[in-house]
């Protein structure tokens, strides 16, 4: 992909075709950890989407206007992780001050996001593809929404899976992995879309 890739293409590709969880295996810890209840999944997904969009914006500005002109692209790992960690703190404080209801819904998930590989992953994908600032924001939004979609589907399935009479060694995590395998197989069907 290069600068001529249209925004719609990037968005659709991030949401369903190159879904972060199913094809890139990013953000699996929350995928298997949080996806036991539908309401938690929605809050987590919203928090991740918010952070991804802001992080994509900030890191692509840094990458395009600081790292590339000064030829220090190799420093992106250290800079990105610091930017994301501080952004998460800022977002947490801002939400706490402005909207207490939202804070109660998202609060406990925000600190977990710092070490969520999906957020760092999407900023690195943006950098590897040389996306412009606008393209990065769209890709961040798409990535976040794709992540939320997967979390919702997974939690819906797992709520029912709890009631299933599975052999004891398959219960819980192994069964969740098998479900993820079937989901990934189903979503591979979208790969011819673009």
């Amino acid at each position, binding site marked *: 992909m290069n600068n001529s890739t249209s925004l719609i293409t990037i968005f659709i590709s991030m949401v369903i075709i190159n879904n972060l969880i*199913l*094809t*890139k*295996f*990013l*953000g*699996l*810890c929350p995928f*298997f950890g949080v996806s036991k209840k539908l309401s938690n999944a929605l809050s987590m997904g919203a928090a991740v989407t918010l952070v991804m969009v802001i992080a994509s914006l900030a890191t692509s500005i840094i990458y395009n206007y600081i790292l590339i002109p000064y030829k220090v692209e*190799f*420093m*992106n*790992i*250290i800079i990105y*992780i*610091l930017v994301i*960690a501080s952004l998460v703190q800022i977002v947490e404080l801002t939400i706490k001050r402005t909207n207490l209801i939202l804070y109660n819904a998202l609060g406990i998930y925000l600190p977990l996001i710092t*070490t*969520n*590989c999906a957020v*760092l*992953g999407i900023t*690195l*994908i943006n950098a*590897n593809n040389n996306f412009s600032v606008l393209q990065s924001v769209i890709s961040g939004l798409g990535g976040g929404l794709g992540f939320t979609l997967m979390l919702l589907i997974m939690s819906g399935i797992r709520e029912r899976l709890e009631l299933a009479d599975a052999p*004891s*060694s*398959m*219960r*819980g*995590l*192994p*069964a*969740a*992995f*098998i479900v*993820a*395998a*079937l989901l*990934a*197989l189903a979503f*591979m069907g979208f790969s011819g879309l673009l």
Partner: protein
Amino acid sequence: MEIEKVKPIKKFWQEFKKGFVITNPVFVLVLGLCPTLAVTSSIDNALGMGIGVIFVLLGSNIIISLIRRFTPPIVRIPVFIVVIASFVTILSLVFEAFIPPLYEALGIYLALIVVNCIILGRAEAFASKNTVFYSIADALGIGMGFTLSLFIVSFLREILGTGKLTVFGLNLFSIPVLSQLPLSFFIMPPGAFLVLGLLLALFRWLGVLKNE
């Protein structure tokens, strides 16, 4: 003198074994899943990733254990992250310079070692509380346990997915029918989830892991 000399080495092995088998990061603690699934489509990539993680874990454990007395507890997490990110940067520069094919194959997952929960977890739970000597044991044990897990998953995926076993360009053996009609499902993303899920279930069934 003799006893004092033997004791630390014995404890060194205990810490090593603990990380390697008893608290194996992938199969027991279920940590570091992203690389476990993403890079295990071939044995080469899995071993490359394993070596990378051992290097970063060793470096970060040594440095963090050396500076543990001067690190203020409030800012310890940012300090840990900067130390880890520095080692990952060194690693990715070295891989890019000396083994470009592996660097290309691992892609963003090399950089994502930074957010691998295993490394930050060991820094927080072990290196920041123990001496350098035992931190090295812990890093080697956990790192090699992680590499072993990656190897098991990638071994199964490569055998089933390609019907052959190729290590660093050397074709060790190929299975007659399977290599002509490989189950390429297993080297694609869904195969990764399936193999790891079945392995977890198998280890539970064998009684190695506890049921939920």
